[in-house]
């Protein structure tokens, strides 16, 4: 305090300004600053002039062309930014400002912003217009792949093609896909292919990476080269979520290198599948139709009578009938013959001849026997007769008569009278005597009279 009072220093304006400058520029040599851009302008010099402000204050800012060159986006009014720089005093006007070395948008990052800006710019130019896009050729046979020959992309791409057995000729056009000159190499490659190679499709591809890694594909000139290609371009950069300006400018975007390969073979595979199906249906149909026809023919031919067959049948039937007839006749005949024979047999058996024969024999026998019997009988009778003769002689009435007895017979009947009542009074009678006959008439007949009286 006392020292100030003792000797108050008097500065010239320049001195003061210099003092301020050295204070500020030494103290605030490297600072980070957050603010919103306003009053942005970029004259032909290529420097960026703007004001950075917040709700209460503002500060002028400048970014010289040397630094501005490296910015991937163009600052805009209203944009909230994080800036890095140093405070500097412009002595002639007694003004201070901040000289910016680096600027990035707050929130989304500079690349994202740059991407958005380029996208808008190219969209306005019509680079992404759908009606400018060429359709992929039918069944591409020859394809140029613009990519790094050592990267993952070409490997993934070829791997899919190998797996699918795709008959496609591939020409790998080697380029850098990352870093300085990557964009211009790719542009050259696109032009080279259009000029020198007769291919159906160009595939511009790269494997996955950071936004920075893929940055070469977010290039205005590359986008224009893609758009200008006469050969349809498929862009397949990074992973599925990565979308680059190239993807949008290309005729077709494939999410990944593998997907690009699938895109090439997809249609063909569908066609092959369709063709296979059609062929299958074609042969199946004709086969079933031929089968049906064969069955129909079979049915018809079954229904269709072959006259020869008929004749054969008739002949067979005839033969059969004939055979049966002959058999039946034979059977009948033999039956008849059997019956006849049986009849004959029976007839023979029952023949009278036999009977006659037998009878004759029988008769002979009987006669013989009869004769025998008769002769015996005769003999016996003769014997008996002899005996009887002898007895008869003994009993002969004559002999009796000779003994005095007589026989009286009624006349004319000459019936021997044994009882008186056999003859009545007046009846004639005859009496036989041992010698002679006496005839008389009955005088009296008394049946009661007897010798006793």
């Amino acid at each position, binding site marked *: 305090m006392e020292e100030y009072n003792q000797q108050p220093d008097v500065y010239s304006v320049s001195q003061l300004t210099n003092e301020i400058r050295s204070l500020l520029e030494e103290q605030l040599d490297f600072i980070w600053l957050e603010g919103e851009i306003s009053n942005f302008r970029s004259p032909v010099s290529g420097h960026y002039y703007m004001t950075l402000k917040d709700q209460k204050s503002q500060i002028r800012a400048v970014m010289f062309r040397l630094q501005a060159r490296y910015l991937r986006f163009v600052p805009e009014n209203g944009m909230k930014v994080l800036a890095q720089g140093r405070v500097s005093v412009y002595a002639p006007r007694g003004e201070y400002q901040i000289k910016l070395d680096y600027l990035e948008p707050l929130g989304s990052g500079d690349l994202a912003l740059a991407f958005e800006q380029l996208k808008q710019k190219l969209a306005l130019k019509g680079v992404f217009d759908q009606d400018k896009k060429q359709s992929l050729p039918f*069944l591409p046979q020859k394809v140029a792949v613009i990519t790094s020959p050592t990267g*993952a992309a070409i490997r993934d791409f*070829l791997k899919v093609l190998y797996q699918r057995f795709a008959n496609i000729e591939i*020409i790998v056009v080697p380029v850098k896909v990352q870093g300085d000159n990557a964009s211009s190499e790719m542009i050259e490659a696109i032009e080279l292919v259009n000029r020198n190679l007769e291919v159906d499709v160009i595939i511009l591809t790269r494997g996955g990476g950071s936004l920075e890694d893929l940055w070469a594909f977010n290039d205005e000139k590359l986008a224009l080269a893609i758009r200008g290609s006469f050969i349809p371009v498929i862009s397949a950069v990074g992973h599925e979520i990565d979308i680059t300006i190239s993807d949008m400018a290309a005729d077709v975007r494939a999410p990944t290198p593998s997907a690009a390969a699938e895109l090439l073979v997809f249609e063909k595979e569908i*066609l092959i599948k369709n063709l296979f199906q059609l062929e299958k249906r*074609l042969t199946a149909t004709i086969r079933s*139709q031929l089968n049906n026809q064969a069955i129909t023919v079979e049915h018809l031919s079954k229904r269709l009578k072959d006259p020869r067959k008929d004749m054969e049948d008739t002949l067979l039937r005839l033969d059969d009938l004939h055979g049966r007839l002959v058999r039946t006749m034979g059977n009948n005949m033999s039956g008849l013959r059997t019956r006849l024979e049986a009849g004959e047999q029976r007839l023979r058996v029952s023949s009278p001849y036999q009977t006659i024969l037998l009878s004759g024999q029988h008769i002979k026998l009987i006669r013989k026997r009869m004769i025998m019997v008769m002769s015996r009988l005769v003999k016996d009778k003769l014997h008996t007769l002899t005996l009887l003769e002898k007895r008869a002689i003994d009993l002969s009435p004559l002999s009796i008569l000779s003994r005095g007895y007589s026989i009286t017979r009624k006349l004319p009947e000459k019936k021997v009278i044994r009882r008186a009542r056999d003859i009545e009074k007046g009846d004639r009678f005859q009496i036989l005597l041992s010698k002679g006959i006496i005839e008389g008439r009955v005088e009296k007949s008394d049946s009661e009279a007897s010798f006793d009286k």
Partner: protein
Amino acid sequence: MTEKKFELAMKDLENIVENLEEGNLSLEDSMAAFEEGMKLAKFCSQKLEEAEKKVSLLVRESNGKHSKIPFELEDITKSE
């Protein structure tokens, strides 16, 4: 042109198959249609198999001209 021809052939083939499948054709017509169909199918599959399976690398020679050399990836079927 190839596309046109191919598409027409496929379309014809489809029509023939459908006609055949409807089964209204006489046997002779069926056989004729079948033969035509097989011809078309052969044509189509030839078109599909036409391209050559080949991978080459474009290299710039010292005279500034470009030429193609066979391109081989040793580990193509192996690891990632």
